[in-house]
């Protein structure tokens, strides 16, 4: 069976949901005739027509606002931000209108906002960001960050079917690098469930998105030294799989929190708090964070290389923690 790339998995997921449910539609910049900046919606215009694959003006706030309006009328819109960086332009609609609607007046806003995020593609400060934490801090939203083709498909389908607003961060670096064989039947990946990508006994590396691969690469390296990493892929940040995190920490007793997002206010901080509040007496060493530094994402390759957390960082910190 053919291997499916991460980007194709997203496309398949949307396509299948649109075939199945006519309420589902896509709106965004260049999603129609061009098929999306990353070709996620390629071929859809021909199949579903211009009123289900809607090219819009460059108006992120209106794209999300319109998605909200349509969702209130029973539709299942998928709003595409061409780059996750531009989601800032729609911040108000997302955090004030969409996130609070159900709470205020009982009207759910079942929208999906797709946001191609992440660095490693030399995109510079405005095409490389990981803005997930603005939204993780907003009650009423859900935030997912798939790392595999299977999850990319399973989570986009789950997001489309979810009754609440879901922000779907798809990692650009993984689009065509990651491929796997996917089952042919209809499946979803439940929002809020983590996956263990590698079982280990010595240190838990808890991460998400492209950093899953960084952790796995480090685990391979450390295996030679007899250090056995457990790699957990959170998959969802809001809600996140608290139970899985605590279980892993209770098993290994040492934890590294890894993300591509910057440090202060990053998800690692929240995880560290939860772990120290709920599993303090299971810790056999300090909770360690590996994150990008608190800077914008730089453009030039040596700078970006420096900025992004690397497998060697995980190896170094894991060694320190193992010896601790």
């Amino acid at each position, binding site marked *: 069976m053919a291997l499916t790339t991460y980007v194709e998995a997203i496309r398949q997921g949307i396509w299948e949901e649109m075939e199945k449910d006519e309420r589902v539609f896509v709106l965004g910049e260049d999603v129609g005739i061009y098929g999306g900046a990353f070709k996620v919606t390629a071929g859809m215009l021909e199949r579903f027509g211009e009123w289900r694959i809607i090219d819009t003006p460059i108006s992120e706030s209106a794209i999300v606002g319109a998605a909200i309006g349509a969702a209130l009328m029973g539709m299942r819109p998928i709003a595409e931000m061409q780059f996750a960086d531009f989601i800032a332009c729609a911040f108000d609609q997302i955090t004030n209108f969409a996130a609070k609607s159900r709470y205020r007046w009982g009207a759910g806003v079942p929208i999906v906002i797709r946001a191609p995020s992440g660095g490693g593609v030399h995109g510079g400060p405005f095409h490389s960001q990981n803005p997930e934490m603005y939204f993780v801090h907003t009650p009423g939203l859900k935030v997912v960050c798939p790392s595999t083709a299977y999850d990319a498909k399973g989570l986009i389908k789950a997001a489309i079917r979810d009754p609440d607003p879901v922000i779907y961060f798809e990692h650009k670096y993984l689009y065509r690098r990651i491929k796997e064989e996917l089952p042919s039947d209809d499946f979803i990946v439940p929002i809020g469930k983590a996956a263990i990508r590698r079982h280990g006994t010595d240190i838990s590396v808890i991460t998400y998105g492209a950093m899953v691969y960084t952790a796995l690469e480090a685990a391979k390296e450390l295996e030679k030294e007899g250090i056995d990493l457990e790699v957990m892929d959170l998959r969802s940040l809001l809600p996140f799989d608290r139970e899985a995190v605590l279980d892993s920490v209770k098993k290994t007793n040492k934890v590294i929190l890894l993300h591509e997002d910057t440090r202060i206010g990053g998800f690692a901080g929240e995880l560290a708090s939860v772990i120290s509040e709920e599993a303090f007496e299971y810790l056999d060493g300090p909770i360690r964070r590996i994150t990008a530094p608190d800077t914008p994402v730089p453009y030039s390759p040596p700078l970006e290389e420096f900025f992004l957390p690397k497998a060697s960082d995980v190896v170094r*910190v894991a060694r320190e923690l193992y010896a601790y």
Partner: protein
Amino acid sequence: MAEIKVIMPQMGESIFEGTLTKWLKKKGDRIKRDEPLFEISTDKVDSEIPSPASGVLQDVLVNEGQTVQINTVVAVIGDDLPASGTLEGAAPAPQSRAESTEKPVKTREDRSPEVRSSPLVRRIAKEHEVALAALAGKGTGISGRITKRDILSYIEQGGSVTKTGLTPPAAPAPPTKPAATALQSSALTGDGERVPMTAMRKSIAEHMVHSRRTSAHVTTFFEVDCSRILQAREKSKPDFERAGVKLTVTPFFVQAAASALKRFPIVNSSLDGDTIVYKLAINIGIAVNIEGGLIVPVVKSAGEKNLLGMARAINDLGERARNKKLTPDDVKDGTFTITNPGQYGGLTGTPIINQPQVAIMSMGGIKKRAVVIDDAIAIRSMIILSLSFDHRVIDGATADQFMADIQKQLESWQA
């Protein structure tokens, strides 16, 4: 300059090992002679150890938390760095990543500074009733930290500590209580927090019980009129202050004791099996209260000091004891001990002899009391001195004569 080896000092004659609790310098640091280099904890004393030489700390051979025998080389001090000009090359490399500025988080260490562990290790220890102190120096983690592996293997080998004492890992394993039971029973009995003894505390405990078992303790009490020494103190105070010495009443008592010990050498003796050993020197230990216990620095050759010398020696020792700056020599070779619970208002005490000595004098508080002098009631500053002596070698009559000698000296003190 050749390499200077820094050793674990002997902090008292009965001491054979010490725990290095903290490095105050790290490898590569420059250090001056007498600058504090590390801290140790032994059965007798917690102390800051000064560097024996100036130079660069070339090598650190003993980790924090590790216990080693005395005279073990713990560090090497090498030649000073070359003169400036080549210093540039020694500048630290720039940090490669933001993470590299991280240091392992320091956790509060189980109440005893020498045992480093982790929340997990403390929980396991609590559940298995293991005193972490039993693993002191045996940790394999960074800085001798007790890791999960350490404590689990310790428990696996049968190591566990009951409330009354240590069971070494080699001994047969006593049944370990499951955590739930342990928690429940402590809840029922109202136990509060369980805190392992520090090395110092354990040492004091051992010494006290040992002394009680060894000597036939008898205590005698004498009331002494302090009017004369207080007058003498007032009179001498300004002169002493000019000499930079604060004059308390203690030196008077130490001097009187030293003088009496000359006349009653049996009180300045010790017992070696069936043999009484009369000590040549009169070295009087003064018990000093410090954080976490007490320590007894010794005024050497007390019989040869005048009041100023005595006061200076006592003040110096007290000061250094509180600042953890005592040297091993300072706590060695005592032949008689004076303790002063009176400073906190105690009337008198029945002290335990500091082995292998045979007597210890306790000073109560000085207080104005109504006393009858020539059938008249007078107000005098009185103190109750007590002497605990080892009846194996000292008879009651001798002890009382000794104390009467001190009493007479103090009451007739000529300023």
